[in-house]
């Protein structure tokens, strides 16, 4: 059964130096407040996992929390590139960043395999691309019935997965709706999980399109209103597009980034 706790306690208890950590969210419901808590807690040598690392991963990388990134698309959606990510890959600043790069289909299936207790997943993917050449976790596999060759990718089983959801009840059952991305799979694939929620309510009334994570499949739940800002929480607040646009200038410059970090995360 999930423990209802604070974000600070959840991160202190469940995220450790050297862990593989996935903070998932597909444009919607990105657990940004949890990312900032990880920066504040000074975690190091993390392997960060996410299909679409965006600005909160840029911040984690820029703050020196990560030694590796496993991903499929790293950008500032609708704006451009991630400059802290670029600086780490191109110049090893503040620390070198190893990358393991997949496509969305590959990453999604790696989470599916992880959630399913399987060591690998099979897909039609990567054929003819250079990704298959540079990424060791992409291998061929042969259908035992037809002889056809397909692609295998290994399961992802993060030490911790963190997601943000609209609501939880007092028993720790979690409910999210709108674009639900790969969050269910990422939580079920992980050894431990933290869910930040907009609010804790007495009862989760059914919602069209809602995904429910039963309390016994979650480790910790913390109430963090606006915990997804500047991304959005369907039914609660809109995406702060201006924040995404303004990140571009901050992140281009190491000094501006450091100043932002001091003021906005540690301030």
């Amino acid at each position, binding site marked *: 059964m999930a423990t209802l706790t604070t974000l600070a306690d959840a991160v202190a208890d469940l995220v450790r130096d050297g862990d593989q950590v996935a903070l998932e969210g597909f444009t919607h419901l990105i657990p940004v407040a949890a990312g900032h808590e990880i920066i504040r807690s000074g975690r190091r040598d993390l392997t960060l996992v996410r299909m679409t690392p965006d600005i909160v991963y840029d911040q984690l990388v820029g703050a020196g929390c990560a030694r590796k990134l496993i991903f499929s698309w790293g950008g500032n959606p609708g704006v451009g590139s991630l400059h802290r990510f670029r600086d780490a890959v191109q110049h090893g600043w503040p620390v070198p960043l190893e990358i393991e790069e997949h496509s969305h289909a590959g990453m999604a299936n790696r989470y599916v395999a992880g959630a399913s207790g399987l060591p690998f997943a099979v897909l*039609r993917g990567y054929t003819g691309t250079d990704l298959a050449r540079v990424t060791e976790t992409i291998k061929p596999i042969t259908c035992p019935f037809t002889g056809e060759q397909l692609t295998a990718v290994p399961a992802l089983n993060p030490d911790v997965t963190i997601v943000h959801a609209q609501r939880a009840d007092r028993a720790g059952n979690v409910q999210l709706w709108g674009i639900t991305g790969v969050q*269910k799979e990422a939580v079920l694939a992980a050894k431990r999980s933290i869910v930040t929620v907009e609010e804790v309510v007495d009862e989760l009334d059914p919602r069209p399109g809602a995904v429910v994570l039963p309390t016994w499949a979650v480790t910790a739940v913390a109430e963090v209103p606006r915990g997804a800002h500047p991304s959005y929480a369907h039914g609660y607040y809109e995406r702060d597009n201006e924040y995404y646009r303004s990140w571009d200038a901050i992140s281009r410059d190491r000094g501006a980034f450091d100043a932002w970090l001091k003021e906005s995360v540690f301030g």
Partner: protein
Amino acid sequence: MSTCTADETMTVAASRALRDGTSCFVGIGLPSTAANLARRTHAPDLVLIYESGTLGAKPDRLPLSIGDGVLAETADAVVGVPEVFNYWLQPGRVDVGFLGAAQLDRFGNINTTVIGGDYHHPEVRLPGAGGAPEIAASCREVFVVVRQSTRAFVDRVDFVTSFGHGRGRGEREALGLPGAGPTLVITDLGVLRPDPETGELTLTELHPGVEVDDVRAATGWELRVSPDLDRTPEPTQQELTVLRALEEAR
């Protein structure tokens, strides 16, 4: 027609390529704008599929990202990301994959990963693959919309993120790729199609006011020009009005 920009002509030309009643897996940016324009002009029953899991999205304003709330609110169905790739894209159910590109080469291969240097020490690190490799593999055909320049239009991409026609016709079949690959490339200067024999991207259409030499100057290989070179009909007033309203409401 009122004066219009090269970008507007490109978007209108791209939107016209989408047939009503077909399904389109939409990349963000230029493809999304063109697809939404098509749905508001000649193709009201165009089915828009975004990799965020929104099937049949009917946004009333242009989404900034592939995961905007307006896509979920207006979709026929919202499914998880694994499902959109596994059940909807992978089996080849989708008619058109609509992609952008940072680099595109003479055989329609796409690079959105790294430019210059080698993979581990690139000059420029780009965002990466996203959904594109499997969109390019699995859709019945692929349209690419991209601004034309010698920087973007290269003889050979630095990194094959999404496979087009490899080094020529027959390679897709040899690799067992189900879709036809890139059949149409729409730029701000004109339209290119793969040569039926060789698969090499060939200029088949010029936008209004553009000459062949302009396109040659913006292409990083010795561009072939179709003997039946067409001229893109000018954007209509209606197309421009709808497009501008879309852009403004963004």
